[in-house]
């Protein structure tokens, strides 16, 4: 109990003293996770919507696979990305290993199935509602997907936020491909893992609370920006 309190205290001090290291790794966390979120959303939202709209032979199998991919173990993703990007791997020449880019790649792989799966679920209901009209109007596949994405943007927000949450809290994969290098690839979660390893639980918890506060901030920010819950909206 005491440890948890001193963790909160540590978080408080880190924040009020504007600890330079803290600011650096917090910004890097945000940069990596938001980049991953944007890239993953660009891939996953249309794909999830497309899955809701299209009927094809292996649709069931695709959906089951997508759901299963939500469970991609981060460590395995990290390993595979490591092997691909390592000097002896096929993309070794790019020299991306142990850079924030590598971390973004790993996170994109982890959160894309999650976002796509939640998006698919949400879009399925909307598609059931719009189906007859959009078919009747002879819309193209692309138009259907764009219409659903636009009119279902509120539901897609949850998908995006789930993805962001997964990304910002993830540590297994980015530890492997980013290496937790000080001043280069250290982010909040890897720093927490480091402090835990050192047995400095106060600092680890403190960083953890900073991370949670950050997640809350982003969520409240997005919610109030998009006014999702305001009465009288869709």
């Amino acid at each position: 109990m005491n440890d948890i309190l001193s963790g909160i205290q540590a978080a408080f001090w880190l924040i009020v003293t504007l600890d330079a290291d803290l600011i650096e790794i917090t910004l890097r966390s945000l940069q990596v996770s938001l980049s991953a979120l944007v890239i993953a959303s660009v891939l996953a939202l249309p794909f999830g919507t497309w899955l809701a709209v299209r009927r094809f032979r292996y649709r069931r199998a695709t959906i089951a696979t997508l759901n299963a991919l939500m469970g991609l173990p981060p460590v395995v993703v990290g390993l595979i990305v490591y092997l691909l990007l390592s000097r002896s791997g096929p993309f070794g020449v790019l020299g991306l290993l142990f850079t924030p880019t590598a971390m973004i790649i790993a996170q994109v792989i982890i959160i894309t199935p999650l976002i796509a799966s939640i998006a698919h679920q949400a879009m399925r209901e909307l598609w059931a509602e719009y189906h007859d009209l959009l078919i009747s109007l002879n819309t193209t596949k692309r138009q259907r997907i764009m219409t659903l994405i636009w009119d279902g943007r509120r539901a897609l927000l949850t998908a995006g936020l789930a993805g962001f949450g997964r990304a910002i809290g993830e540590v297994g994969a980015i530890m492997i491909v980013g290496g937790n290098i000080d001043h280069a690839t250290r982010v909040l979660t890897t720093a927490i893992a480091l402090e835990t390893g050192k047995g400095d639980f106060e600092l680890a918890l403190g960083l953890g609370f900073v991370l949670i506060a950050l997640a809350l901030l982003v969520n409240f920010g997005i919610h109030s920006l998009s006014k999702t819950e305001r009465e009288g909206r869709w």
Partner: protein
Amino acid sequence: MTHSMSVSLHKMHVKRRGKSILGPIDLELAPTGFTMVLGPNGAGKTTLLKVLHGIERVSSGSVQWSVSGAQAQQEQAYVFQSPIMLRRSVSQNLAYPLQISGISKAEITGRVETWLDRIGLSNMAERPATRLSGGERQKLALGRALIRDPQVLFLDEPCANLDGRSTREIEALLLNTLHTGTRIIMTTHDIGQARRLASDVVFLLNGELHEQGRATEFFDEPKTPEAKAFLNGDIVE
């Protein structure tokens, strides 16, 4: 509006879960006129309209338009029995079919104005369509169907929730549309309305085509006792 479209059904049959819900039907519809599809609840009227429009899967048989399938659908419009509202404002709902046809912004604005006025919803252009009253929804759905000047218009009980005045206005609008050359295929349970509008009638019963013919004949001298009973609001069996 350069070419006309006729359609023919050949042994068209719709089954769902092994149960026959419509057909088999053989039917020819001429390229012009106002066809009224009549029949009791559950007779298959909605199903027939959807089959003609190409949005209901046919289990066997064929539906053949005189123009290619893609072109046929492009120039048709459909008003559903329960109006489907996009989760947007009233004017955005009207603009939608124009937007997806790639019409210029300026023209869209103009046409939306015109149609808001014609369907009498000008004073609620910015209201979310999902908040409209039952009758207002029906009017909006009708305007959204007509705004692309379709060559064939399907209407599934378009006046069910309209008040007397709106019904009259919509009827006038439909006859006007008919006279500019649009083919109309409609269902209604209002026999008076059917009489006022129809040029010919398709009478369905229990998923089968029971009678077909010119409107005047059907209403004045129905050939079968079932049709007679139906027109009187009696038990049809």
